[in-house]
């Protein structure tokens, strides 16, 4: 060891620091979304004015956008797989597709929010409104951040080849992306499918 260059911040176990960091972060995110989901579960039935959940939810529509998000996880994992095989063009392709699917989902959410708003559910309308928009909004922001990261990655890869670590970067963003997806799996069931 003495003769090679030793970097001050390297892992001594062979486990990637950044990956361990990412998983640690995701563990923490469980408590963030847990808190938001619990708040929603406590307040979902408290409607003093404005529509009730069952009156405005459009299950077929949300099912489709949920499906879109689910499939974006598939394209994401394909991107990771391609990155590991050093297939640059494929990586970029799948990353782009993932971002597009994510954008579709967010677009769906924007549409849904507008529709709900028009049906009388504003952020301040009722506890249901406040907690619904907060929960799904937080999720939407997470997806949006994911999209920005995906697009940035594509851009960076196009301009310069990030040496060596590329696959790992893709993998990290993949982990984040899948996490956002599994949060939606829970939200979809608890918020939309269990009636109030």
């Amino acid at each position, binding site marked *: *060891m*003495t*003769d*090679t*260059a*030793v*970097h*001050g*911040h*390297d*892992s*001594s*176990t062979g*486990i990637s*620091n*950044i990956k*361990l*960091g990412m998983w*640690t*972060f995701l*563990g*923490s*995110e469980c*408590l*963030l979304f847990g*808190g*938001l989901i619990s*708040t929603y579960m*406590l*307040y979902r039935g*408290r409607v*003093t004015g404005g529509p009730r959940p069952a009156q405005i939810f459009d299950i077929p529509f949300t099912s489709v956008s949920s499906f879109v998000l689910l499939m974006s996880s598939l394209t994401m994992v394909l991107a990771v797989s391609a990155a590991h095989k050093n297939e640059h063009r494929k990586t970029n392709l799948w990353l782009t597709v993932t971002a597009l699917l994510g954008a579709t989902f967010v677009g769906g959410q924007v549409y849904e929010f507008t529709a709900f708003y028009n049906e009388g559910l504003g*952020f*301040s309308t*009722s*506890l249901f*409104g*406040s*907690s619904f928009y*907060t929960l799904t909004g*937080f999720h939407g922001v997470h997806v949006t951040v994911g999209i*920005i990261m995906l697009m*940035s990655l594509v851009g*960076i890869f196009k301009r310069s080849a990030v040496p060596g670590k590329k696959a790992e970067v893709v993998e990290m963003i993949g982990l984040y992306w899948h996490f956002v997806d599994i949060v939606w799996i829970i939200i979809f069931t608890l918020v939309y499918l269990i009636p109030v």
Partner: protein
Amino acid sequence: MAIIERETEVVVPVTVTPTSTYGVLKRPVSATGWRAWVFTVDHKKLGLMYGATAMFFFIVGGVEALLIRLQLAAPNGKVLNADLYNQMFTMHATTMVFLFVMPMAAGLANYFIPLQIGARDVAFPRINALGFWLLLFAGIFINLSWFLGGAADGGWFMYAPNSGPVFSPTNGIDFWAFGLQIAGIASLTGAINLIVTVLNMRAPGMTLMKMPIFTWMMTVVQFLLLFAVPVITVALFLLSFQRNFGARFFDVAAGADPLLWQHLFWIFGHPEVYILVLPAFGIVSEVLPVFSRKPLFGYPFVVFSGAAIGFVGWGVWAHHMFASGLGPVSVAVFSLTTMAIAVPTGVKIINWTLTMWGGKLYFSTAMKFSIGLIVLFTVGGLSGVTHSVAPSDTQQTDTYYIVAHFHYVLFGGAVLGFFSGFYYWWPKMFGKMLNERLGGWNFWLMVIGMNMTFGPMHILGLQGQPRRMYQWTEARAGEGFFNLAFWNMIASIGSFVLAVGILLFLINVVITARNPTRAPLDPWNSRSLEWLTSNPPKEHNFDVIPTVHHLDEFFHRKYEEDPESHTMRQIATAEEIMAEQERNADKHIHMPSPSYWPIVVAFSVLVITFGMIFSYLIAAIGGVTLLFASFGWALEPSTAPESDFESNSSTPGTALDSVGNS
């Protein structure tokens, strides 16, 4: 214990730092002067910066406390008006908890975890720097509210709906909530960083059960932070959305339940109190063995009890809500779990006592503070147990008896622990020894002052004086010489004794800084790996990454058991061991390079929060800056390419100089 420093004249290994700048934007070159601090990513420098920031806020919080005590010294106090008083105790607690104890713990963790596990830096040095700057900006931000319309005035647990826009119309609570969000990000990044560091970067041979106990306790703290911070993040978001965007979360007219806030706050808040005290437990568990010349009694028990405290700490939060109306079933359950947590804490007290038992005790100032902690924390812990008996707690809650409890555990626990750590580690951090005689005065004044201040609060509370009252009245003070007036006066006098004690510490620091005598390499005959470095450590910490064979590795390099008498016999001095290290030094060590981005990112976050309060335009500007800064960050390789390094062996000891510059 006198160890004479031997001049070693071996080749000093060199830390190579990049000499040119690179990256998308130019990168700061490690320099001297303020740049060396502002753009640093060195865990030791950041540790010191955390420490200095925390110390500053300790004095701020302390002066706030003194104002509180002045106001309460006599009935119908006129020093502060009601409004100002309410801001004062809110900010006192906020400052002490979030801007003193937590950053101080973060500072010590930053400085010593890498040293104790035999690493050269943390896993993510730039994120480390980001954490510090966020924290500093959060502290400044929260305190700016004093000058921008009034500070938060809802008490440190900020119960809804009293913290809502109607009942607290100034911006104070907005500053408070956003500021704590920023501090929360800092804690979270710090937690992830240190967890990865501990799990991933230990020196060869250092299994988890050979890890120094301070590192262990700090690791538990990081896990608590990791999981507790998001909970208060949620709570603060709900509050901010209510205050700024018309959400209804705590609006009773809309059917909201105010207990939601209480639950969320205390789900965070209880783990938080262990976040505050476990670092001190870690320090004490380092100091006691060193000055008892004996290993920590029952190391695995101390480790597991620490983990158990961390774990059980998640199931007790509602003991802060015994009077809130949870219903008897919940109250009973949380009463039980709260009692349960006394058991692992007791394990610690018992183990510390038994560590000293049969030892060879040397009463340095550090040791005095540690022993002080054992006794005074126990007092606070035991009053905690009396709270855990829920029916009794309904008599005690929100009285000075509670105030007594938490100051005994916080001051008698966390603060005394820190002071123990200061005296113990000062030579390591600054290469100078704090004056021990002054230290003795420091210790005794603090202990006497603290007992004078907080001891009477037990009596005040049990006599029925509620907390958070800007004035108390003689009508309710009782008769006889020892009435509430008497005890309030004693407490107020005590707080100034305490202040003098702390002032002595600051004086000690100044005296020490001016004293040219350098500390010996191993002044305390210590046991753990951080002492396998120079005082202060070189930029790269270790000349050779040590291979670990024992718990208390450093001690076992110095001593060997005499097979007959079973006592320990010295086989090497610290100087010899260090000289050996230098001889075998790694030749070429790359340390992470400084970076502009952490402070830029942190600053954009600050701008965003300002904008949230004053103008969304400013927030948008901050957002854009943040986005670009993030790109800059992402595109900057964490170390310079090989070609950018150039051996600067002609100037040995630069690393040392730059740290000593403090």
